[in-house]
Structure formats: C-alpha cells, structure tokens
C-alpha cells in the first residue's frame, strides 16, 4: 500500500524531471534570498549595536546565513541529479545515494522551519537588550570626551531623528539624567549651583530635551528648554501641546522596526521552506518512478511513482524497528566484547 502513487510513462517522466529541475533553480534563488536576508539583518544589528549595549545575540542572522548557503548547495546538487535523471546512464551513479540525499533534504527542511519560528520569537530577547542599551545610551549621552563613548551622543541624536522618538519610554526620561557635560556648565553661576544642590546625586537636571527630540511638523519653533513651565513661553501649555517633540519612546520605535523586519524575514523563510518541501517531494517522485521500471532495459516502459513505499504508520514502525535493531546491534557487540574479555 503505497502513499499517493501516480502512474508514469516516458513522456510524463521527462516532464516531471524538467519541472523539478526548474523548481530547483527557484529553490537555489530562495537559498540566496535567505542568505542575503541573514546578511542584511546582521548589518542592521551591527549598526545599532551601541544602543543594544554591544550585547545583542547574532545567533539568528548567523543561522540564516548558514541555512542559506546549505540550501543553495543542496538545491544545486538536487538540480544536477534531476538533470541527469533523463539519461539512464548518468542516473545510475546517483541512484545509490539518492535515498540518503532525500533524508538530508528532509532534515534541511525541518531546520528551515525551525529558523522561521525563531525569527518570529526573536522579538522577546531583543526587547530586553534594547531596554538596557537605551538606558545606558542616554546616561552616556554627555560623555563626549570619554574614549569609547564619545560617539554615543551622535548615535543617539541620529537615532532619535531617524526613528522619530524621544527618550526610552517617553521624553520625560531626559528629565531624570544629566545630559549636559560638566565641561559646559558654569559652576560659578547661581542657577547651576541651585540645580546641582537640588538632588542627592549632585546632577544638573533640567526639564529640557536634546534638539533631536524636536518634531519638524510642529507649527511653532521647537521648545526644548523649560518644557514643563507654561509661563516661560508665550501661548504654551505643555499638557495639551502634542506636536512639539516626538511623543513616542525609542524602545517602542526600535522594537516595532526590528519586529516588522523579523516578521517579514520569518514569512519569507516559511515560503522558502514550502518550496523546499515541494522540490523534495518532486525528487522523491523522480526517484521512485525511475526505480520501478516495468522493464529495466527499456526506457520507454511504464513505471509507478510514490511518496512513501508503505503507509505512514508502517514507515514509522519500520524506522523505529531499524533504530532498535541498531541499538541492539551495538549492545550485542558490547556483550560479545565483554564475553571475549571475560573469557580471555
């Protein structure tokens, strides 16, 4: 009782081989696509690695790159096999390894599926990395003279302008840290001394935000300083003012950016997986149709193609039995060796 058998004559076999060969070339392009997406994601993570505290995990992009390369190689090889299957002489040399190749293909397909799932799940660790990284980013904003952190200000400014966000959760995060370096504070001025004396840590805190938080769509020139003081600005009410600075927090903005990116990549990897499964099934049909020729000498004879030689249940029990016998085989060997050892 075979699973989904189809009758084949020469013409149908030739057509099948050609179609599967064609699909293999698409699958090679799919592998290239997965590879390039892994590369793109790796570059994006690198670009913002300062804001992720140099702590981001490159596991997923590396996996994508590896899977892309493996998929390309296996699909090119499969295409070659299909091409040769039209010529019985050439096909003979592939016949022996075809079964193991098909098993390898199935393993690859399951790995691709797992990769796709990981793409969708990667949002969670990213959230924590971003929260920590952004908090530190803001803390080191003023350290433009400390080696290793001197570009944090520029990175953070460019990021706030690009992603249209301000602060970690919102713009009030800037009120809680000192983001003006001490080099530019006049410690002789009364105002500065008051502010520093007003909190335990001796930090110069103000209700102001950097210029990169400003929203260009605001109808009035940007109000960055004394934001919570309505009397400091004409016709200004900070409770109702919405367009002045970006309202969104940068953690939200970056998470939604990377989340969208990962969802797209995950969807594309799923599509490539489906294509791979299709070509594997196609190759299995090619294999089975060529191995069941009614008259092995005559290439024009009819044959039958299938996905599984027995039903799913029987194939499964077969595999289990093979594995058990392999396990028993090693046990018997050990027992035999032990017996030999004891005897001698």
């Amino acid at each position, binding site marked *: 009782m075979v699973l989904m058998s189809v009758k084949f004559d020469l013409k149908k076999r030739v057509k099948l081989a050609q179609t599967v060969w064609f699909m293999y070339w698409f699958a090679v392009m799919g592998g290239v696509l997965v590879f390039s997406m892994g590369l793109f994601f790796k570059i994006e993570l690198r670009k913002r690695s300062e804001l992720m505290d140099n702590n981001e995990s490159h596991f997923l992009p590396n996996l994508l790159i590896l899977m892309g390369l493996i998929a390309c190689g296996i699909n090119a090889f499969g295409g070659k096999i299909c091409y040769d299957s039209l010529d019985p002489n050439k096909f003979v040399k592939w016949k022996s390894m075809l079964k193991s190749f098909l098993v390898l293909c199935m393993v690859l397909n399951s790995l691709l599926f797992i990769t796709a799932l990981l793409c969708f799940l990667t949002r969670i660790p990213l959230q924590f990395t971003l929260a920590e990284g952004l908090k530190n980013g803001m803390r080191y904003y003023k350290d433009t003279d400390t080696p290793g952190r001197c570009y944090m200000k520029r990175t953070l*400014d460019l990021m706030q302008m690009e992603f249209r966000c301000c602060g970690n959760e919102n713009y009030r995060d800037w009120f809680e840290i000192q983001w003006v*370096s001490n080099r530019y504070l006049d410690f002789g001025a009364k105002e500065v001394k008051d502010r520093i004396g007003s909190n335990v840590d001796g930090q110069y805190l103000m209700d102001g935000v950097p210029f990169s938080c400003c929203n260009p769509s605001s109808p009035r020139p940007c109000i960055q300083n004394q934001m919570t003081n309505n009397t400091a600005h004409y*016709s200004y009410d900070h409770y109702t003012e919405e367009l002045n600075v970006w309202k969104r927090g940068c953690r939200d903005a970056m998470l939604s950016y990377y989340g969208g990116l990962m969802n797209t990549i995950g969807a594309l990897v799923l599509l490539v997986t489906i294509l791979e499964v299709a070509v594997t099934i196609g190759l299995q049909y090619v294999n089975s149709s060529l191995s069941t020729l009614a008259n092995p000498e005559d290439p024009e004879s009819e044959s039958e193609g299938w996905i599984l030689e027995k039903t799913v249940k029987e194939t499964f029990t077969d595999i289990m039995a093979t594995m058990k016998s392999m396990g028993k085989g090693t046990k018997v060997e050990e027992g035999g060796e032990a017996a030999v050892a004891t005897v001698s």
Partner: protein
Amino acid sequence: MIVKMPFMPVKFNLQKRVKLAQGLWMIYWLSVIVGILIFSLGIFFKIELRKRSEMMDSNESHLVPNLLILVGLMACGLNAFGGKVCHDSLDPMKFAKWKPMLRSYLLLCCGFNGLLLLTAVLCFLMQFAVYLTLAEGLKNSIKFYKDTDTPGRCFMKRTLDMTQIEFRCCGNNNFRDWFEVQWISNRYLDMSNDLVKDRVLSNVEGKYLMDSVPFSCCNPGSPRPCIQHHLTNNSAHYDYDHRIEELNIWTRGCREALFSYFSSMMNSIGMLILATIILEVRLHPQHTTMEDPENPECESDGWLLEKGVKETFGELFSKMKILGKKNQVDEGGDAEATT
C-alpha cells in the same frame, strides 16, 4: 567609370555570418537592458525633482527626465526589433520579409543616436538651470518658513527642516541667512513684552529678527548640546566662542548641498548615456553584412558603408537637391495650371 569602394570591407563565410548574428543578438539584448536602465533613471530623476519641488519654487524644468523616459522607451523598442531581425537573419526565408525595411531601420537608428547625444548634452547643461532655480526657491522657502498657518505654505517649515537635517546644511548660503529673516510666526510672539517690542522696532520692516537658527541646523556630531540662540553672543554661553566654533551647527549652505546632489546625479546619467551611444554605434558596422545572397553557403562581403564616406555624403546631398527641385517644379506646374 566609378569604382565601388566599400568602406571598411570584411569577408564572410557562413560560419562567420552565423557567429556574427549570434553576437549581435546578445548585444541587442544588452542594449534593451540598458534602455530599461535609462528609463528607470529618468523616472527616479523625475521623482527626486518632484520631492524637492517646493525648494525650487515649483518652477523646475522637467525636460531632462521626460526626455530620458522617452529615450529609454525608444531604445528598448528599437533594440528589441533589431534583436528579432538578427534572430531571423539566420533563416533566409524569415529574413526575406525584413530585408526591405532594413535600410530605413538603420536610418532610424542613426537618428536615435543623434537624439541620445542631445540628451547627454542636455544632462550636462541643465545643471545651470537647476542651480538658478534652487537659489530662488530656497530664498523663498526661508521667507515662508514661519507661515505654518497659510494654506499652500503650511508644510514649508517641515520640508525645510527635513531638508536641512537630510542634507546637513543650514540656510541658503550659510547659517547667517536665518538672521535676516523672521522665522518665528507672530502667533507665538508676545507683543506686549519689552524685549519683543525692542527687536521689532529695531529694523525698518518691523520684523522680529534674532541671531538664532532653527533646530534643524544643529549638528549631532557636536560634543556639546546644540546652541541655537544668541549665536553671536559669546557671553550668553559658557566657554563659547562663535568665531572658532565649527561643530555646533552645519556650516554648509543648502543651495550648495542640494546642487551638488543633483549635479552628481545628472553627471552620472550623462555618462551612462554617452556609454550607451558608444554601444549603439558599434552595432552599425554589423548591420550591413546581413544582405544575404541566394546561396546561403557562399562567401559574401560585409561593409560599413557601400561607398566611401565622401561619396555617401555626396549622394545624400544630390538626393536632397533633387527632392528640392521636384518641389519647385511641382509648384511651378501648379501655378501654371491655375493661370
């Protein structure tokens, strides 16, 4: 007796002709791809001009991108047709139907090459027009920056801010252009305040001028938080000297920044078109060899021009003179008929 002296003759046998036809067919497909490239570059250029049309006073000339789009489409069509003819030239029966129109097709290709040359020249020359449009447009943009409540200009502030951020520039020539213009709307000025009244009265036109720039002029690479206001007053800020401060705000003017962007784009497109012309001109020598004799296997001659260059020109001129004379005779005949 005039001896026929072909221009750059080459001997051909069947094998050589087949090889030539195949090579030509490949080049034709390459030319089709180049035609598509020119078409897409024309569309890209058109979109870029549109995006910045507010900066150019909505006055920019779309001649070059439109011409590029047209030329790209024509290149695709002509080269696809040429490729089809090449493909058919290997089969004498199919080629027979193309033979009569081959000559006019070659003339059309020559005309097309002239058009390509004109487009390339325009790409390089129109940059001056873009420069002048930018100068005028940016000046007006800065003037209308504050009019965020005037219909038709309410997005000027946002456009100018985004342009200054994207192109890393400030003002028209430099940041001092902002000192000469009132860029804060009157709606946000407290007219009863003494400071405001002083400033407004300090100039003839009653404008609120200050030595400040908008936030979009700020340079993120500056080590200190951006100083936007009281830029020329050293004592207003701690440890600040406006004469030596270079990283605080962008020092380049937006006209220069935008012009260098557009000019590099137009130069690249012009170079590509020149390369296309060279590619197209190389195709011509091979065309004329496609005159097949009855026996496909025998040898034949191929040439660039049937007679020498001088003689071909002489023929062209005499033909045009005959055409002119014919018109005159016709008119004379008509005049006689009417009288």
